[in-house]
C-alpha cells in the first residue's frame, strides 16, 4: 500500500482509495468540495513521487508542470509527498465592489481584482476564505463589457461559505480567488447554431454569461433559456430576462416553478420535460445545462438521445460538499 506524506504526517492509502479519501479517513483537514473531479478545490501539489495521469488530466498545462493534481481523482500506485497549494502561485486577491440581494436566497457579488482576469463568461472561480474554506461560483459577467467579476451566491442550508458571503462579507473586504475553470462557455463556430440553455436556481449565472457572450459575438441563431426555481421570487432575473426576450428577437425565455418539492427532484422531471417537449429534435443544437446535478445529468442523457452531439453538450453540475458527506 502506498504511503502519502502530507506535510510531516504519513498516511497509508488503501487499495483503490484516493489521496483525498485517505486524508479524510485520517482526519486530516484537507480542502475539498465536489469529490467528482470538477471543482478543483482539492488540488494539492506533489513534491516527490509519481502522479497518476488521470489526477492531472483536467488541469491546465502550467499547473501540471508545477506538480499540481486533483487529490479526489488520484489513486496512487506508489508513495507520494504532497502539500497544500502555494497560495501565491494559485490565488489572487479580489475586493468586493458591490453586494445586492436578488431574491430571498440569492445574493449578487461583484468583485474586482488588481489585474484583470482572463476568462470566458460561464466559467467558474474558486473563492477561498481566510480559514481555508473553498467553494466554486460561476461567472455571470462578461470580460469584454464588465470591469468586475459577477457571481450569484445562493444560500445553501447549512452552507458554510454561502451564508458567510451573504451575511458577513462586506463591500471593500477582500477574498482570495483562483481560476477560471470549466468549459461551460460560448463556443459556437457557427453563429446560426440554435442554443438551448437550462439552469436551476443559480445555475442561471453561467447561462447569463453564455447568453451575453453569444449576443456580444452577434449570435443570430435561436437562443432558448429555461430557468427553474422553487417559487416566483426565486426566478431572480425574471423581469430582466422577459425584457431581454422582448428586445432581442432570437431570444426566448421560459420559467419553470418547481413548487414545494425539492427542486432537484422536480426539475429532473418537470424542467426536463418542458425543455424537451418544446424542442424534441435537437440535432445540430448546442446545449448548456447548469445547476442541480440530478437535473443536469438526466437532461444530458435526454438531449443526447434527442440528437445533440456529445461535444455540443456543456454541463456544470453544482456538486455540493454536503451531498457527499458520508
Amino acid at each position, binding site marked *: 500500500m502506498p504511503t502519502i506524506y502530507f506535510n510531516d504526517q504519513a498516511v497509508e492509502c488503501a487499495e483503490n482509495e484516493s489521496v483525498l479519501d485517505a486524508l479524510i479517513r485520517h482526519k486530516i483537514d484537507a480542502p475539498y468540495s465536489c469529490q467528482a473531479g470538477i471543482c478543483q478545490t482539492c488540488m494539492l501539489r506533489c513534491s516527490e513521487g509519481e502522479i497518476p495521469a488521470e489526477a492531472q488530466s483536467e488541469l491546465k498545462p502550467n499547473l501540471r508542470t508545477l506538480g499540481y493534481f486533483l487529490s479526489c481523482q488520484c489513486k496512487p500506485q506508489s508513495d507520494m509527498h504532497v502539500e497544500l497549494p502555494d497560495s501565491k502561485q494559485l490565488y489572487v486577491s479580489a475586493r468586493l465592489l458591490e453586494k445586492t440581494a436578488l431574491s430571498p436566497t440569492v445574493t449578487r457579488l461583484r468583485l474586482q481584482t488588481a489585474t484583470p482576469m482572463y476568462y470566458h463568461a460561464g466559467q467558474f472561480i474558486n473563492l477561498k476564505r481566510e480559514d481555508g474554506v473553498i467553494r466554486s461560483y460561476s461567472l455571470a459577467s462578461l470580460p469584454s463589457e464588465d470591469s468586475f467579476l459577477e457571481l450569484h451566491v445562493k444560500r445553501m442550508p447549512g452552507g458554510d461559505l454561502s451564508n458567510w458571503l451573504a451575511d458577513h462579507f462586506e463591500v471593500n473586504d477582500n477574498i482570495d480567488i483562483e481560476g477560471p475553470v470549466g468549459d461551460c462557455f460560448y463556443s459556437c463556430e457557427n453563429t446560426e447554431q440554435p442554443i438551448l440553455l437550462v439552469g436551476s436556481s443559480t445555475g442561471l449565472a453561467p447561462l447569463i454569461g453564455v447568453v451575453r457572450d453569444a449576443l456580444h459575438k452577434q449570435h443570430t441563431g435561436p437562443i432558448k433559456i429555461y430557468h427553474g426555481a422553487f417559487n416566483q421570487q426565486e426566478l431572480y432575473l425574471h423581469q430582466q430576462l422577459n425584457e431581454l426576450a422582448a428586445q432581442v428577437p432570437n431570444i426566448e425565455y421560459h420559467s419553470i416553478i418547481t413548487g414545494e418539492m425539492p427542486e432537484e427532484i422536480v426539475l429532473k422531471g418537470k424542467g426536463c420535460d418542458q425543455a424537451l417537449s418544446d424542442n424534441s429534435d435537437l440535432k445540430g443544437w448546442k446545449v448548456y445545462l447548469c445547476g442541480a446535478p440530478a437535473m443536469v445529468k438526466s437532461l444530458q*442523457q435526454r438531449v443526447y438521445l434527442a440528437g445533440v452531439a456529445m461535444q455540443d453538450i456543456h454541463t456544470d453540475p453544482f456538486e455540493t460538499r454536503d451531498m457527499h458527506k458520508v
Partner: protein
Amino acid sequence: MSSLFDQIGGEAAVNAAVDIFYRKVLADDSINHFFETTDMAAQHAKQKSFLTMAFGGPNNYSGDDMRTAHAPLVAKGLNEDHFNAVAGHLQSTLQELKVADELIAEVMNIAGSTKDDVLNR
C-alpha cells in the same frame, strides 16, 4: 494496401460513428441498463476506444482487459443476446454512415473476435 483504420477514414470516422453508435445503445432498453453511469462523457470516451479498436486502429486493449472490464456486467447477466444487440448497433451505424460492405464485414469480424473475452467464457 492501407490499413482498415485508414480505409474507413481514421479518427474522423471514429468521431462520426461514436455519437450515432452510443445513442443507439442508450436508446435500446434491452441493453441500456449495462451502460447506466453517472459520467456520460467518460462512457462516451470508452465507446470511442471500443470503436477505435473495432476499426482496426491503435488501441491498448488486451484480452485480459476485456475480461476484467466486463466481469461485473457478466455478473449482472450480460449474455450473448446483449453482445449481439451491441454488435447490431455497430453494424447499422456503419451502414448509416455508408461505409463499404466489405469494410463493415472486417469491422464486424474484429468486434466478433472479442466475444469470448467480453462474456468471460
